[in-house]
């Protein structure tokens, strides 16, 4: 057994142990912490699977931002935990265990008997890379070959933020999301919130730019920018914008909007919806990606901030 295989087995065992601990631990806050650790280790698995783009997305969004939103909710609901309902009865738990175990078994068997040779679209993607002028095959798939998925996903993000905002109570509608954060102006958090964003913003933009040829892209860059903004908000150095702000709403629709305009342009002047003319493919894709990055950063941060809670004037 090689050292790499040993590392993989240990990694898989730790990930599984964390998953089980996250499910069984009694405190919800601990479960959220376990989930963050789980997300970061799963990102390592993605690196081992040679999918660095996915690893970066998983670490930044799955483990990082997803972890923050879970931790925030767990902290707010901590007091209510004592009066929650009792666990289901033994029969229900045994049935659930049997059902889960059998589904896991079926999946495991399916993994072991996957067909050989495996079906793959990699050669098709690589041989068509010249049509867009981008060297990163994943960005090619996201922005060109399956651009429809990416566009609709931007619409899903927009629907999610509409859903979160519409949970506001009547008097808070149009106001600022989340509580006003107060932190010690001379504390560590405020210090980090001043020190990190200049570097973080450069890293976010670099990730967007380098995504054309190397792992990276709009999602990863947007997630880094969102976390920088959140850091500044949580340190109390800036407040969340009121949701009635027109410029904020413009940023939120910029990504799907530009995508849709370019797509319709392909329908009017080209052969099909979202068909880029080969000569302008790279500038068009870059334009969409810049708009998308802004939208992703704003949407992710505002999804974390939650429903409007305070009127805009306060």
């Amino acid at each position, binding site marked *: 057994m090689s050292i790499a295989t040993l590392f993989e087995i240990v990694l898989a065992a730790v990930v599984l142990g964390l998953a089980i601990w996250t499910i069984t631990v009694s405190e919800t806050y601990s479960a959220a912490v376990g989930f963050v650790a789980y997300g970061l280790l799963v990102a390592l698995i993605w690196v081992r699977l040679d*999918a660095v783009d996915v690893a970066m997305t998983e670490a930044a969004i799955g483990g990082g931002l997803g972890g923050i939103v879970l931790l925030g909710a767990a902290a707010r609901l901590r007091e209510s935990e004592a*009066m929650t309902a009792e666990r289901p009865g033994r029969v229900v738990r045994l049935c659930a265990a049997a059902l889960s175990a059998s589904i896991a078994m079926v999946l495991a068997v399916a993994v072991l008997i996957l067909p050989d040779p495996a079906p793959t679209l990699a050669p098709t993607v690589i041989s068509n890379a010249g049509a867009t002028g981008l060297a990163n095959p994943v960005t090619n798939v996201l922005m060109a070959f399956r651009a429809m998925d990416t566009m609709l996903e931007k619409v899903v993000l927009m629907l999610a933020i509409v859903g979160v905002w519409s949970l506001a109570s009547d008097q808070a509608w149009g106001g600022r999301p989340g509580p006003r954060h107060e932190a010690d102006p001379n504390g560590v958090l405020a210090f980090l919130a001043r020190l990190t964003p200049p570097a973080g913003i450069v890293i976010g933009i670099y990730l967007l730019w380098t995504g054309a040829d190397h792992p990276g892209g709009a999602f990863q860059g947007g997630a880094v920018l969102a976390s920088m903004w959140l850091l500044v908000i949580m340190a109390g150095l800036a407040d969340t914008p009121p949701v009635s702000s027109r410029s904020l709403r413009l940023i939120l629709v910029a990504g799907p909007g530009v995508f849709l305009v370019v797509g319709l342009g392909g329908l009017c002047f080209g052969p099909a919806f979202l068909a880029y003319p080969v000569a302008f493919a790279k500038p068009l894709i870059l334009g969409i990606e810049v708009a998308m990055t802004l939208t992703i950063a704003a949407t992710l941060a505002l999804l974390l901030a939650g429903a409007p809670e305070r009127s805009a004037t306060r």
Partner: protein
Amino acid sequence: MSAVTVFGLCAAAAVGVGLYGLITNPQPLRKIIAFNLLGSGVFLLFGIIGRRGAAAGSGNDPVPQALVITGVVVAFSATALAIALTLRLFETAGSMTLRSRAPTGPNSDPSAG
């Protein structure tokens, strides 16, 4: 044993663990966490399929990778929406239960059930 087998079995087990937590944990927030575990297992299974399709100089089939990236972002936005709903439920009902009749705790509002 190759990486595909090791992580494939790990992903299958993660789906099972997530499903068990989804059914047996009574609290909404724990159900959300369990559902995310289940989802990450499904994404990993897709990554295994992509890894087996490595060809033409790329170590993992780019099409499943792109779909998983899209999926991770959608899963996050669904999680954020679910958590906002949970917090709103707690705010209006004063209790954290999914049962149709809320327990008669000190803070619970009988009209909310």
